[in-house]
């Protein structure tokens, strides 16, 4: 096996095992710990490991979903950090927890990391909650909801001649179709673009089908550094490039129809250094897929969101990590050689992470 060399760091790190819950609109019978436990148990089983094999643990979540402080603290009970473990948490999507774990595994002697992300969007009103991400002095007091902000972005794209409403519907149609083969998806059906165009507007120009579902869900990944990855799986998904960037927060300070942070992260991750077989893009709104695709320079030969993507299942704080899982699974099963995983955070794609995953040749 010839392990593909990483562009960043000095030590190759691979995804060797994944697990995710089925995304559902409302999981009432399980709290966060109960949602996570089967996922963590499954990812260990898939890796043939126990918690004793793990050198580092990192998770991503946000307190604002449960409406209380320290939601990650009780969630740790799903892992059972006893004896004590080296462990950390990011108030970001689980994809950034994966980034921190990837950095940690660059150190010799730290070989295995567990990463997880979880979120129950059903616990509150996400439109209200996400408004609290905005500038607390000038924007949040007006409570702009995320759908209205996304609509501003979609309209900017239409105004600049980058997309049409029919393009948005075509993406939604394909996402729902792809989701039919994804057992964890929440929205899966056969609807033509023409049928979807009959939907009402949620906020013009966004019709209902261009919005992501509200999802509860959790996801976990095990990373292994170096050749030990081949002990776990025949074809590890090597992270050959990874980078993340943030854009300005104020909407007036950026062109909403583009994503400079995505472009820069994709360049640093080396997206264009070879053909991309599949890309899992964390584009919660249909129009954002077009925007991200342009920002990364992905051409027509790349299959976008074969899982159905966030339009089919979108648990907050795990949605980005699930993109890594869907991309890695296709490397590990041999159906793709080179894949892109993308995660986003913040209002209208403010912050973006891009990674390239490759199988050994």
């Amino acid at each position: 096996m010839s392990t593909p060399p990483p562009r960043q760091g000095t030590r190759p790190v691979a995804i060797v095992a994944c697990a995710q819950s089925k995304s559902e609109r409302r999981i009432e019978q399980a709290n966060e710990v109960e949602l996570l436990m089967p996922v963590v148990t499954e990812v260990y089983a898939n890796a043939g490991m126990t918690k004793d094999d793990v050198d580092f643990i990192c998770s991503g979540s946000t307190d604002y979903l449960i409406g209380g402080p320290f939601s990650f603290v009780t969630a740790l009970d799903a892992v059972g950090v006893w004896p004590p473990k080296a462990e950390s948490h990011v108030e970001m999507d689980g994809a950034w927890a994966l980034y921190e774990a990837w950095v940690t595994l660059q150190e010799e002697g730290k070989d295995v990391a567990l990463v997880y992300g979880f979120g129950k969007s059903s616990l509150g009103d996400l439109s209200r909650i996400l408004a609290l991400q905005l500038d607390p002095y000038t924007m949040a007091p007006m409570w702009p909801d995320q759908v209205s902000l996304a609509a501003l972005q979609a309209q900017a794209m239409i105004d600049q001649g980058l997309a049409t409403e029919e393009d948005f519907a075509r993406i939604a149609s394909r996402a729902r179709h792809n989701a039919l083969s994804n057992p964890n998806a929440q929205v899966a059906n056969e609807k033509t673009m023409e049928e979807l165009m009959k939907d009402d507007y949620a906020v013009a120009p966004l019709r209902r089908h261009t919005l992501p579902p509200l999802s509860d869900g959790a996801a976990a990944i095990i990373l292994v550094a170096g050749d030990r990855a081949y002990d776990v799986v025949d074809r590890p998904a090597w992270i050959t490039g990874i980078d993340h960037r943030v854009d300005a927060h104020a909407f007036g300070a950026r062109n909403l129809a583009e994503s400079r942070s995505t472009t820069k992260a994709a360049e640093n991750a080396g997206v264009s250094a070879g053909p991309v077989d599949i890309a899992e893009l964390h584009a919660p709104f249909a129009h954002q897929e077009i925007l991200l695709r342009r920002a990364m320079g992905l051409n027509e030969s790349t299959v976008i969101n074969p899982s159905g993507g966030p339009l089919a299942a979108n648990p907050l704080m795990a949605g980005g990590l699930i993109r890594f899982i869907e991309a890695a699974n296709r490397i590990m099963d041999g159906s793709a050689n080179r894949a892109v995983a993308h995660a986003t955070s913040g209002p209208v794609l403010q912050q973006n992470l891009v990674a390239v995953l490759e199988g050994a040749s």
Partner: protein
Amino acid sequence: MNQRCAVIGVGQTHHKSKREDVSIAGLVREAAVAALEDAGLDFSDIDAVVVGKAPDMFEGIMMPELYLAGALGAVGKPMFRVHTAGSVGGSTAIVAAHLVANGIHKRVLTVAFEKQSDSDAMWALSVPQPFSAPLLAGAGGYFAPIIRSYINKSGAPNNVGMKVAVKDRLHALKNPYAHLHLPDIDLKMVEESVMLWDPLHYLESCPSSDGAAAMVLSSEDVAVAQEKTTGRPAAWIHGMAMRSEPTMFAGRNLMNPQAGRDCAKDVFAQAGITKPRQELDCAEVYVPFSWYEPMWLENLGFAEENEGWKLTDSGATSLDGGDIPWNCSGGVLSSNPIGASGMLRFLESALQVRNMAGDHQVPDAHKALGHAYGGGSQFFSMWVVGSDKPE
């Protein structure tokens, strides 16, 4: 660590109960600009920004780093947000240091803050959660019974906590950035302050502060170059570690948590330290309630079990003649911008080994410990810094 990493610049705000003169962006920028000036660098020199703070509910802003991207010069760069409860300031420094030590970036700005006056931490800590024991009385209500158990177990005299409260406030008088400056502080004043959570008097508890802390961390080549440019020495990281354990389980030792002991063992092994009291010159340790000084003296291996209070009682941890001064800055008992409190411990340890701590400098300090803890005393982050490069 794959390569050496140094602290080349530090900055902090003047901590106060209400910093009404600045927004949150203004607060963090004050610390960040000071750290960059100390390092002899500009925002444009920075490769990545790592932000830490305690629960978002403390200010009522979800992921406030997104809004702070501009103020921290992070636009177009990687920006990262750490949250590990009270230990977050320390964990954030470690996450930032890993980016340098593991060869990803050369110059990283790390910032931690809390603007407690924008909200009410007591309220934010007391939101009832299903199937969880309610705290109701904030952090002090949680820790007071553990402290009472420690007093019973160790046989410590009742006034040891009060001695810590006095000592740290005397130290704070030498630190212009400290929130509390109480020139008349003495045992009588502490004893006569109101009993908040038995056995903790009001003056044995940390204040609520607005404040921020920032550090510039760099690779060895950058550190050596900046030492020449600025004429100010770097502090070299000799070891860093994090450990976590669950909040509750049968048989858990709350007074002397295993995670703290493991974390100390790890960080001291990295730094080649076998006798911390003898080999370290000082320590900045997260002591938000007075009695946590004797408890952490034991947990960190500065004293045998049940003997920690004797160090405090004898004055060993005082800047005034003690052999192992703890919290020369005044510590968390004198300034508590929660998210930044851990980073201030790490920052102050770096200041000491750079010989730049001013009136609260320990003479000829070469090696110092920075420590933070959080949650139900279950999350620990620590580093050892030195004036010399590590082996």
